[in-house]
C-alpha cells in the first residue's frame, strides 16, 4: 500500500486539518470531528446534518455550506461516525427549527444516527431522519440489510438543503428529501478494488479482464463478477438495472460519479453512453453532474444515479449552492 498519508491512524484527523486550512467558509471541530459552516446556525432555518464513514470525499464535508448541509460527521474510513459526534453536530446546527439527519442506509449508520436522534430528542432538539437507499444492485428484502445509500445522497443533500434555505419547515424539508430518494436509483461498477489504509491491501482481487457489477461505496465486491467490456456495454448493464427497477422517462437529473481513481476523461466517455441510452428510452438528462462526488478511496470505477425531476425539484436543484464540492447559482 502506497498512500499520501502520515499514518494509518491519523488519516481522518489529518484530512480534517487540511479541510480546515483550505476552506475559510468551514469551521472544523477537530476534537469531535465535525465540519460546520463557519457562519453558524441561522435562526429559523432547519439544520441539515449528514455523515458517514470517511473515504467518500467530497461527500459529506465538501457539501457543507450555503444551500446544502449545515454540518457533516465523518467517521473513520468506511466506518459510520458515533452518536456523540452526531449529537454535537445536531446541537451545533439547531437554529430553533429542528434538524434533519440525512442517513445512508447501512446498518452502522442507521444504528448510530438512531441513537443520536433519540438522545437529541431527549434534550429537546427535534430531529427527523431521511434514509437514503437508492442502490438497485441490492434487493430490498428480508434477506438483505436493504438497499444501500449511494449517489442519491448528494441529490437529497442538495435539494433538501435548498428547500431549508427558504425557511421551509422540518416536515416539509424531510418530505422533499424523501421524495428525492424515492425518485432516485443508482448502480455502481468497479474496475479495481480500493485499499483501506488500516487494511493495507486491496479489498478484493480482480484480474485484468474482470470487473465487479453492483458495487457499493465501501470497497465491497459487487453482486456479480463479469468480463471487462466496452464502456458502452458496461453502461448498458448499469442503466438496464436502473430502468428495470424504475423505468426511465421524462426529465432526469443524472450523476455519473467516479469512485475516486477514475480519470474524468473516462467519466465523460461513460456519460456519453448514458446520454445515448436515455435517448433510446425517450428520457432526457436535463441536469447532470460528471465527476468524483461519492467516492471509495482510490477505486477505479463509476456509478450512475438518476432522479426523475419535477418542476419543484428542478428549481431546488438550480438554487444557489456554495460548498467546496458544489457551487452554482446566485
Amino acid at each position, binding site marked *: 500500500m502506497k498512500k499520501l498519508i502520515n499514518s494509518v491512524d491519523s488519516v481522518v484527523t489529518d484530512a480534517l486539518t487540511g479541510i480546515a486550512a483550505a476552506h475559510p467558509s468551514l469551521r472544523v471541530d477537530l476534537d469531535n470531528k465535525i465540519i460546520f459552516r463557519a457562519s453558524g446556525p441561522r435562526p429559523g432555518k432547519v439544520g441539515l446534518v449528514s455523515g458517514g464513514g470517511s473515504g467518500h470525499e467530497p461527500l459529506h464535508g465538501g457539501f457543507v455550506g450555503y444551500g446544502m448541509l449545515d454540518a457533516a460527521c465523518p467517521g*473513520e474510513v468506511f466506518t459510520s461516525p458515533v452518536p456523540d459526534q452526531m449529537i454535537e453536530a445536531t446541537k451545533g446546527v439547531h437554529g430553533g427549527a429542528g434538524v434533519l439527519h440525512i442517513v445512508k442506509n447501512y446498518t452502522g449508520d442507521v444504528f448510530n444516527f438512531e441513537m443520536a436522534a433519540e438522545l437529541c430528542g431527549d434534550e429537546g432538539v427535534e430531529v427527523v431522519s431521511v434514509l437514503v437507499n437508492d442502490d438497485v444492485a441490492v434487493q430490498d428484502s428480508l434477506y438483505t440489510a436493504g438497499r444501500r445509500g449511494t449517489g442519491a445522497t448528494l441529490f437529497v443533500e442538495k435539494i433538501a438543503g435548498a428547500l431549508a434555505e427558504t425557511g421551509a419547515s422540518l416536515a416539509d424539508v424531510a418530505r422533499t428529501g424523501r421524495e428525492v430518494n424515492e425518485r432516485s436509483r443508482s448502480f455502481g461498477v468497479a474496475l479495481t478494488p480500493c485499499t483501506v489504509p488500516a487494511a493495507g491491501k486491496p479489498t478484493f482481487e480482480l484480474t485484468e479482464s474482470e470487473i465487479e457489477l453492483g458495487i457499493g461505496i*465501501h470497497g465491497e465486491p459487487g453482486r456479480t463478477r463479469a468480463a471487462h467490456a466496452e464502456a458502452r456495454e458496461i453502461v448498458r448493464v448499469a442503466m438496464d438495472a436502473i430502468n428495470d427497477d424504475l423505468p426511465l422517462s421524462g426529465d432526469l437529473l443524472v450523476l455519473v460519479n467516479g469512485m475516486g481513481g477514475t480519470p474524468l476523461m473516462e467519466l465523460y466517455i461513460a456519460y456519453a453512453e448514458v446520454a445515448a441510452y436515455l435517448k433510446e428510452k425517450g428520457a432526457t438528462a436535463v441536469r447532470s453532474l460528471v465527476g468524483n462526488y461519492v467516492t471509495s478511496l482510490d477505486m477505479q470505477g463509476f456509478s450512475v444515479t438518476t432522479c426523475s425531476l419535477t418542476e419543484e425539484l428542478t428549481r431546488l436543484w438550480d438554487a444557489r449552492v456554495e460548498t467546496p464540492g458544489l457551487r452554482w447559482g446566485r
Partner: protein
Amino acid sequence: MDTSFFVAWMEEIATAVQAQRDHLTQLDAAIGDADHGSNLDRGFGEVRRALADSPPETPGSTLMLAGSTLIRKVGGASGPLYGTAFRQMGKSLGDVPDVSLAELSAALDAALAGVQKLGAAVEGDKTMVDALAPAVRALAQAVQEGVKPEDALSAVAAAAQEGARATIPLQARKGRASYLGSRSAGHEDPGAASTALVLSALRTAGFRTW
C-alpha cells in the same frame, strides 16, 4: 466473579482483539468493508483506557462503562451492537458485587436480547448472533447441570467458536455482507469471529483471576 474479574475480562478482550486485529479486518475485507479489526481494536483500547481512568466499583458498572465507551468510540454496526450487549449485561447485573454463574447467564441472555432487539438478526443470518446465541445456551445448560465455573466458561467459549465457524457456509441476511447475496457464503462472519474472541476472553479472565 467480582469487579476485578470483569475488568480482567475487558483487558483480555483488548489483548485478543489487538492480536487478531488484522485477521478480523481481513475477514471483513472478504464480505464487508475491511474495518472490523480496526473498529474493535480502537474500541477496546478505549475501554481499557476508560476503565483505567475511572476504575469502576461493581461488575455492573464495569460493563456499563465498557458498553458506553464502545458506543461512543467505535461507530459502524459493531459499536452499537457490542455497546448494547455490554450495557444490557451491566443493567442485568445491577449492583451485585460478586456475580454468580447463574447471574452471568442471565446477563448474557440480556446481552443477546439487546443485540437482537437492535439488529433484528436471528440465528442463521450470519452475524454475531450466530456465535452469541449458542454461547448463551451453553452457559444456561452449564448452570442447570451445576458444572464448575471453569468448565462452564470453557463451554461458553467452545460454543461461541463453534457458532462462528458455522457461519462460513451461510448466506448473510443482515449487515453489509448481505449485499453480496450468495457470494457471502464461504467466508466466516467477522462479527461472529470477534464474538468468539470476546467470549473466549471470559474464560481467560477466569484463569487469570481465580
